[in-house]
């Protein structure tokens, strides 16, 4: 129904991800969004860190940059500022973006640099075999929280908002059509935008927490997803364990590269250093 092929590096297929990993669903939603916007392959640079999700850029026929763990946003900052006309999309995981990379995440949000961050939140470090992440819920097991996680998890969308992001949305792989729309809006937004995607990792997270098959995990997502509108009418107790989806932030404010361009322009019309 949709021609994914023109955006793909088909010779790299099949995907390395496990059976039932949600990452591929997000990839597809991303490509549909890009297609809708009408961006050409050359106009996009996709930057990732290290993790299962961060392997994504290897499959897409854009300018692709697979960096060091946690630093995707820092590298992307260089790409974007050096070439502001480029659409720069960051693909990252919960560990990559909010554990080791947490600082770059909040600073890019603060600067309101025009990047689009697609954050694959599977509540675990998938790539390294299932260690606890800053988004693993309290009580859940991971290879480094064998007795159940003691640490409260981040609300990573809330963090982006507090740090200054222009656009923040949360979706799930079950709501793939909604996701596509969020991603489209996020890319179109001139400013720092985040789409947090809740995606299942049956291998490193689901299995250890007896969450059943990948299908069960998606079904759970379906049941637990609550739109922002509905959530507004629910009590905190009712919201316990739910995933609130929707566009959480959508504001307009000065974007970094545009402000910089203005400054350069002003300086051109001025002689001498003062």
């Amino acid at each position, binding site marked *: 129904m949709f021609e994914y092929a023109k955006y793909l590096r088909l010779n790299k297929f099949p995907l390395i991800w496990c059976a039932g990993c949600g990452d591929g669903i997000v990839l597809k939603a991303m490509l549909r969004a890009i297609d809708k916007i009408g961006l050409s392959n050359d106009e996009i640079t996709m930057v990732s860190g290290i993790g299962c999700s961060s392997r994504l850029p290897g499959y897409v026929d854009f300018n692709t940059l697979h960096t060091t763990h946690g630093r995707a946003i820092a590298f992307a900052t260089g790409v974007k500022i050096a070439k502001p006309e480029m659409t720069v999309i960051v693909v990252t995981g919960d560990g990559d973006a909010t554990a080791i990379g947490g600082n770059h995440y909040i600073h890019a949000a603060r600067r309101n640099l025009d990047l689009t961050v697609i954050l694959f939140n599977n509540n675990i470090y998938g*790539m390294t075999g299932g260690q606890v992440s800053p988004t693993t819920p309290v009580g859940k097991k991971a290879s480094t929280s064998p007795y159940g996680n003691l640490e409260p998890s981040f609300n990573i969308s809330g963090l982006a908002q507090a740090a200054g992001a222009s656009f923040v949305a949360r979706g799930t792989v079950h709501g793939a059509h909604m996701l596509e729309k969020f991603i489209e809006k996020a890319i179109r937004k001139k400013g720092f935008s985040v789409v947090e995607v809740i995606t299942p990792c049956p291998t490193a997270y689901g299995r250890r927490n007896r969450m059943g098959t990948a299908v069960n995990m998606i079904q759970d997502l379906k049941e637990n997803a609550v739109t922002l509108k509905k959530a507004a009418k629910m009590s905190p107790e009712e919201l316990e364990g739910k995933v609130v989806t929707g566009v959480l932030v959508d504001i307009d404010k000065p974007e970094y590269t545009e402000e910089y361009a203005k400054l350069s322009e002003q300086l051109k019309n001025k002689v001498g250093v003062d």
Partner: protein
Amino acid sequence: MGMRYEVRLSGEGGQGLVLAGKILAEAAAIYDGKNATQSQSYGPEARGGASRSEVIISDEDIDYPKATNIDLLLALTQESSDKYSKDLKENGILLVDSEAVTKLPEGNFNVYKVPISEIARSKIGKVVVANIVALGIIAELSTIVSIDSLESAVLARVPKGTEELNLKAFRTGMEVAQELLK
């Protein structure tokens, strides 16, 4: 120099070959009093794809813990058979899952074709114990570890509550091998 027996268990990620290797090594080391090492290689990714687990059994110190001159190779998939058979020694034992491996590697080997996964499914009722079935076959084909030791090692390693099942799988493997050797 002394005896050195090299076993390579190959297949794909998730088939329990690391566990099988570890059981084999423990049988030799803890129960038979030999020396043993077990090691594995991962693909570029930590999961999926061809995977191998190697056991070296020796009656002296094991210097190099990787297999280079293999006495017995188990291949559960075509890919692993293609990829990992090159170090199998002349006249070495090649045990393949006959349903998965249709094209045998070239060379002068003692080949045994057994529908290992199929046996696990049909005779034990669980594909996941194919690794233990294979161990039973290997025990008979190689005779490098005593049956008692292997049974003890299996029982010590498998999850609680699955002892019976695994013992059955192991013995089924042995029986299959005995048929083959007849």
